[in-house]
């Protein structure tokens, strides 16, 4: 830089000042037009002559389906096949997609569990899911037990399909599945095989007899499938599962958290260039559970006067939703800031990583933050 910095700074300040005080004629004209714009388009004459509402609405996200088949495989895995009661065509899905299964509970609430579709996407009249039974004593949340109680002929509400694990077209794949994590991977393997891609699968589990779909996978191409069992070879080393990756391999991994963490460390992220080539690591994005926990307190909504009790094991957001179902939120983790509301009374225990979750602020993130005392009054 050869220009004397001070001089050019001073000159640019003058230019800035001039620009600030005397906008060009074009800008002034635009400004005047912009101010007229809301007036014109909201006038009655305009409404009568120009704008016609023509709402386009969709449905069919919630589907009442019937269980067409149920089979127990690998000891404790129930494989369900769903179909429309009238046998109609179901929405299309691609590998990696999942559905929400909504089960009514005796207390009137709904139990929601998400399961990957693991059948053939080309079969447009059936969907297949697999559910491993996990006893509550072994840490299960009761969802899998309720699922296993379903029988052929039962009607179940499914929502979806939705894809949070998108399968991109490519030339080389390494699939890594741990246990029941095979379910989203299975249709991917089939798609890669059908497309003639260069693929390999490493499928790890406790024992061969506890692993569903082994025969189905080996039948695709036994040379490309490696089965790793803990009882024969011990706990798998993730580094070994990710050996010999080609230059342009898409790694699709679904398994327990330690396996995901290890893979992330082994394949560090980098800013991809425009060719988007190179090794990429794909893992499924789950909606993380909301952060909760603490003492109970009450929240009063100032605009309606309604008061809701927030239990120790729920978020203020969950409690507010009981009286205000369309309150704004998004991440439920305290980072995005969508659920920020003004607090009119009471002191706040701030949680979350959003820039807005700061001490002294007179607003809170209702998805994670709580009351320091027993009660809050919020601007809702």
């Amino acid at each position: 830089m050869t220009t004397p910095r001070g001089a050019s700074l001073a000159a640019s300040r003058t230019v800035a000042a001039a620009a600030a005080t005397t906008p060009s004629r074009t800008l002034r004209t635009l400004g005047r037009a912009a101010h007229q714009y809301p007036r014109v388009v909201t006038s009655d004459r305009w409404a009568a002559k120009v704008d016609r509402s023509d709402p386009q609405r969709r449905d069919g996200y919630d589907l009442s389906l019937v269980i067409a088949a149920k089979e127990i495989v690998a000891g404790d895995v129930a494989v369900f096949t769903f179909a429309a009661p009238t046998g109609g065509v179901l929405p299309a899905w691609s590998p990696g997609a999942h559905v929400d299964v909504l089960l009514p509970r005796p207390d009137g609430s709904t139990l929601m569990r998400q399961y990957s579709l693991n059948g053939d996407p080309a079969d447009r009249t059936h969907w297949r899911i697999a559910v491993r039974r996990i006893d509550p004593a072994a840490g299960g949340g009761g969802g899998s037990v309720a699922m296993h109680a379903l029988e052929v002929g039962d009607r179940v509400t499914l929502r979806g399909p939705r894809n949070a694990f998108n399968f991109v077209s490519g030339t080389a794949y390494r699939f890594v599945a741990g246990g029941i994590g095979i379910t989203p991977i299975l249709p991917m393997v089939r798609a890669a095989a059908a497309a003639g891609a260069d693929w390999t699968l490493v499928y790890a589990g406790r024992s061969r007899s506890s692993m569903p779909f082994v025969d189905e996978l080996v039948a695709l191409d036994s040379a490309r499938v490696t089965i790793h069992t803990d009882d024969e070879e011990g706990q798998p080393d993730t580094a070994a599962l990710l050996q010999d990756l080609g230059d342009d391999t898409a790694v699709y991994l679904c398994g327990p958290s330690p396996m995901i963490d290890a893979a992330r460390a082994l394949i560090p992220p980098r800013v991809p260039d425009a060719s988007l080539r190179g090794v990429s690591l794909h893992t499924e994005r789950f909606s993380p559970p909301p952060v909760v926990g603490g003492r109970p307190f009450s929240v009063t909504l100032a605009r309606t006067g309604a008061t809701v009790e927030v239990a120790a094991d729920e978020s203020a957001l969950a409690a507010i939703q009981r009286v205000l179902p369309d309150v704004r939120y998004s991440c439920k983790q305290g980072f995005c800031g969508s659920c920020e509301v003004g607090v009119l009374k009471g002191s706040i225990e701030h949680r979350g990583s959003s820039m807005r979750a700061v001490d002294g602020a007179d607003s809170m993130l209702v998805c994670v933050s709580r009351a320091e005392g027993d009660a809050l009054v919020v601007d809702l």
Partner: protein
Amino acid sequence: MTTQSPASRETSVEGAHTAYAEEALAIRPRNVSFDWSSVPFHYVPTDAYATHFWNVMHLVLPEGERAMADVLGRALDQIEDPRLKEELIGFIGQEETHASSHESFRHYLEAHGVDIPRVTGVMAQIMDKIFGEHDLTGRAADAWFKERLGLYAAAEHFTAVVGEWLIDNAEFDRVGVDPTMLDLLRWHGAEEMEHRNVAFDVYQYVDGGYARRVRTAIVASAGLLTLWLWASRFLYVNDPRIERPRRPMPLAFIRSARRGLIPGIGFVLREIPPYVRRDFHPSKMGPIDKAVRYLANSPAARDAA
């Protein structure tokens, strides 16, 4: 259950519902963060104007994205379609994280002597005086709400096509744009591709009027272009770090566009018209594999919750 082909959507009459024929894409915010400490001031090397062109994102988008998230959020209680509702909830969080990520770079610019209040002040005026509430009531308030949904839907078309441009642009790699800034631009672009249908579908759900769609597309495009050219020029001519004599403004824009470091006017003229076709839907703009691939590598986004 009804089974209609996606094509039948276009012929549906008012009030008619057509069934979704395809899976939804899960739209969720990512907990990204960026460390600006090692970013050079002119992060697009050899092109100061291009740097300032992209700086406009940091200065004008946060206010616009928050206003958009606010207006679209008010449509939540009108939407009974659970799919559109969950997409909108994810969209709001993505827009909020875009706003705060771009905003985080303002501290850097301020520390480097950029007159931020001049630009953000104009932006705040625009959002308040033109796109604000205007104390309207009844039918006029409803019309203005729908008008703004139309404007935001059109602006989102703009950001989706620019987002794809950002991911595709090999010139960024060739000249060596700072990797942290490039990740912000491309992560943002990838999420814009991910949620490209949401604002459009909300507009179609609540109003769907064709005349309003065309009008708001023209207003939004003209407004964004004017704002962008004004703000980038302001930053460029007030940058004391640029060697004098400085290339005059229209030439600087043309040069950066020719070098492929910013989208040119031709890009705008090419990408906007499809939006005003009667049968337009964002899903017709091709697969979003690029966004998926980018996000599977992005240092900011890949491992973020």
